[in-house]
């Protein structure tokens, strides 16, 4: 593999001292396409939030040489105010932030890119629609169009296909494959193991601790999946202090 995009060194992220991500070490290669799989409560979303800097690690390090605008982050849909009176085109144009900044004007090239991005997610002609009138699947397409415009070198997707129908998921997976082809680094939190096996060459199987990390076929073994399920959602009120590993 080529250069390292992000390096995790003994990373632990904790809520009220209970670890959600526990002693994770490893590297994410530049240009790799990695799925983060695991049961609910396995710390998948927390890991993404730690990488973009929204959560502070309790211990350990995240190393990269990227600016915050180099990341494209798609959070779980619940974080967004879907009733806000903003048009589809304006939502997509937020992706031009790196060029426009908070206060600058948006160049005509960016307008063209926004239209192209909407065509790419099959929402051509939706520019003037309010986002309140879109279905869940259409709205997810809009967010992918915004990511397309962001032109980020590292793209983090948090459960991008939850509650999305098969056709939309296929279209959006095509875009993910396209990003991979362009040499961008993509990390996606996913629930659907079949999807992981079919579309993602690398997998990080997480159940607070790393169960497996590497080529998908090796990681997604029956034994590993059983192990992941067994470790899920354990919250021990009386847990002692974790001794430094190694």
């Amino acid at each position, binding site marked *: 593999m080529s250069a390292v995009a992000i390096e995790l060194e003994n990373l632990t992220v904790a809520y009220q001292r209970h670890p959600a991500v526990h002693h994770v070490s490893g590297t994410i290669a530049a240009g790799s396409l990695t799925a983060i799989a695991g049961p609910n409560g396995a710390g998948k979303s927390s890991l993404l939030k730690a990488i973009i800097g929204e959560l502070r690690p309790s211990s350990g390090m995240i190393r990269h040489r990227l600016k915050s605008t180099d990341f494209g982050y798609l*959070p779980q849909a619940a974080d967004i105010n879907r009733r*806000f009176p903003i048009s589809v085109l304006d939502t997509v144009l937020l992706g031009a932030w790196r060029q426009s900044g908070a206060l600058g004007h948006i160049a005509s090239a960016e307008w063209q890119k926004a239209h192209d991005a909407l065509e790419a997610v099959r929402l051509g002609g939706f520019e003037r629609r*309010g986002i309140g009138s879109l279905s869940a699947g259409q709205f997810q397409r809009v967010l992918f169009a915004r990511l397309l415009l962001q032109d980020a070198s590292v793209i983090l997707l948090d459960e991008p296909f939850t509650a999305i129908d098969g056709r939309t998921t296929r279209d959006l997976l095509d875009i993910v494959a396209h990003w991979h082809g362009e040499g961008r680094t993509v990390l996606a939190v996913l629930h659907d193991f079949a999807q992981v096996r079919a579309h993602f060459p690398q997998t990080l199987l997480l159940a607070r601790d790393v169960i497996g990390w590497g080529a998908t076929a090796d990681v997604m073994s029956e034994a590993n999946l059983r192990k992941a399920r067994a470790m899920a959602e354990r919250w021990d009120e009386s847990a002692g202090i974790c001794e430094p590993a190694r």
Partner: protein
Amino acid sequence: MTAYDLLLAPFADYGFMRRALVACLCLGLGSGPIGVFLMLRRMSLVGDAMSHAVLPGAAIGYLIAGSLSLTAMGLGGLVAGLSVALLSGMVSRATSLQEDASFASFYLSSLALGVLIVSLRGSNIDLLHVLFGTILAIDASALYEIGAISTATLATLAIIYRPLVAECFDPGFLRAIGGRGPIYHFIFLLLVVLNLVASFLALGTLMAVGLMMLPAAIAQLWSPSLPSMMAIAAASATASGYLGLIASYHLELASGPTIIMTAALLYAISIFLAPSGLARRYLPRPHLKG
């Protein structure tokens, strides 16, 4: 009575009516769009609370200046309003109290303190002025200050429009790209307090927020897009000011409450007639083919 007598004569004949009209137009232009953002951030009641929180500062300014001076009361109100906003934010982050609960505690304390300070030194008439405003007694210098606040409000909103919209609509996105959302939130709070201080002299502490929230609610009933919502809010706020002044002149009613009642009337009409209002619900039109 001719149309001229009805609609223009009050302003042609009396200087205080002209000044009141200009003050209302300025207040409406600034407060309408601010109210729309408050509503979209689900902070409608925060605006109300904030208008009360302004009182002790304004009262102290009034005591120091010895008269209803907008500069002194405005500065005091600005300090008081911002401290309550910041303190309640800090308390809700540091304790298990939700933001609305800590806000309510702070503004109630603030309102009580303000009324106490005014009653300590001023007369009951002063208290009435502070609570209900004196739009017919606005002088030229107060008018300049109200105009300056409206101008600054509209210019600032135009400049920070994109980050403010992003912060309301998708704060997570703004955080992820390093967009410094809290700075724009603070600038916005500053604008809210400034506009409340401007409305304070005209409409009093109890109704200062009226020209913000009623026009915002009207705008949301009529329009699905943010720019037109802001235009509708500004238009309905200024229209309420003009119509309210005329009604109060001819019917010999108190001006401040009449202006807010006019806005309330427009709101009631909108509830029935607007696209998302009651009339459409009970008189459904046939659906389209696709």
